[in-house]
């Protein structure tokens, strides 16, 4: 089971209180996580990546296992700890004021 931690505003939008758990076949990648996440929570489509190009929104970042995966290819297999559910995959808003 893949564990995904969303930023607070997206948890509110998706009506979830804690981390999200997703069943995903291998290989587990950022793209496959986001595909599964948007399929289960359609209201999140367009909020993490563009509807059409699937490009990451500029102010969002992805972390896992204390690593910044933001600039990895979306099709790069994620660390084993994420695949095994030992570590969550984080979607984070970039730190900025306002």
């Amino acid at each position, binding site marked *: 089971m893949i564990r995904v931690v969303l930023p607070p*505003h997206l948890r509110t939008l998706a009506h979830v209180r804690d981390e999200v758990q997703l069943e995903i076949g291998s290989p587990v990648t950022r793209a496959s996580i986001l595909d599964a996440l948007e399929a*289960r929570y*359609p*209201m999140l*489509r367009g909020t*993490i990546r563009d509807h059409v190009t699937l490009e990451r929104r500029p102010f969002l970042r992805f972390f896992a296992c204390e690593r910044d995966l933001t600039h990895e290819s979306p099709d790069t297999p994620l660390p084993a700890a994420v695949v095994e559910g030992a570590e969550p995959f984080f979607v984070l808003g970039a730190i900025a004021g306002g």
Partner: protein
Amino acid sequence: MSGVRVLVGTRKGAFILTADGKRERWNVSGPHFAGWEIYHMKGSPADPNRLYASQTSGWFGQVIQRSCDGGKTWETPGGGMTKTADGMPAGESNKFVYDTSPETGKPLTTHQFYDGTQHPWEFKRVWHLEPSLTDPDTVYAGIEDAALFRTSDGGKTWQELAGLRGHGTGPKWQPGAGGMCLHTILLDPTNARRMYVAISAAGAFRSDDGGKTWKPINRGLRSQYIPDPTAEVGHCVHRIALHRSRPGVLFMQKHWDVMRSDDAGDSWHEISGNLPTDFGFVIDVHAHEPETVYVIPIKSDSEHYVPDGKLRVYRSRKGGNEWEALAKGLPQQDCYVNVLRDAMAVDSLDKCGVYFGTSGGQVYMSADAGDSWTPIVRDLPAVLSVEVQTLR
């Protein structure tokens, strides 16, 4: 029992203010969508409990929210666990994609950027939502970069009315300080095929075939900040208003100059008259007196606060040129707030109510057509929009 519902969009959420017909005691609900920018909320004239809200964020983009119970609960249309016929998840309520199909769309051109170079069209947010006068499921959306979209399924899916962006003048449109936004959508209550839109900085446009084709209606506008001050497009129109009994008469607050048209926009003439400054954002018309018009003069250019530290609404009872300052109940010293283009509205109770919201978070109302004012709330986040529903 009559009443009013005031829909307030702010930089950090939405608020709903309600009162009975006396408009003396107010209930404040919110913040809804806390932390998000709410550019606009508006109710359906055909079903007052149907509300739509544009919720945006620099981090997470655009979300459309819908309420079917007057704002008590909200949903993202199509955002639930529904599926389309081919099994794909629905939920395209926030999907605004320019129409480039050869059948209905136009190839995406570029538009002018701030420095005069050409720049690609990019969706940023929904500035204004205008529900149909007759169908609660049909809503028009004015977006940045400027284009007009429509939903006919209650906000689940949106399609561009590409004849506007694609009619030919698009490459001459340019952004104003707030971006290149389509901020005004007016539906003619006597002619279902006629509608008006306004864009900063392109100008005003009219369709006489339900939004399929468009033409610029800017003759008479004069703008010193473009190379040809009387050009067909390029004018920074801030807001247009009309009275539903006389929809061919339009009032415009432009970036400098308050203007009037008596021929559905075919020609305009200036009515700034004795205003202390002819710059401002809002303009609106009294609910029962089509010649009574309201503006709030603002200092240009980048100051963007009221002149002399005094917050004053100006009212003309003669359709322009002769304006009186309305200050009773409004701060008359050390006040430096702005009032943005979508932040004024009127109710249609017997004595017309007038409402506006400020960048300082106050929402003021007058229950006597502007003669006196009182704050409903004083300390909201900066107000982006104010709409009023008269409930009967």
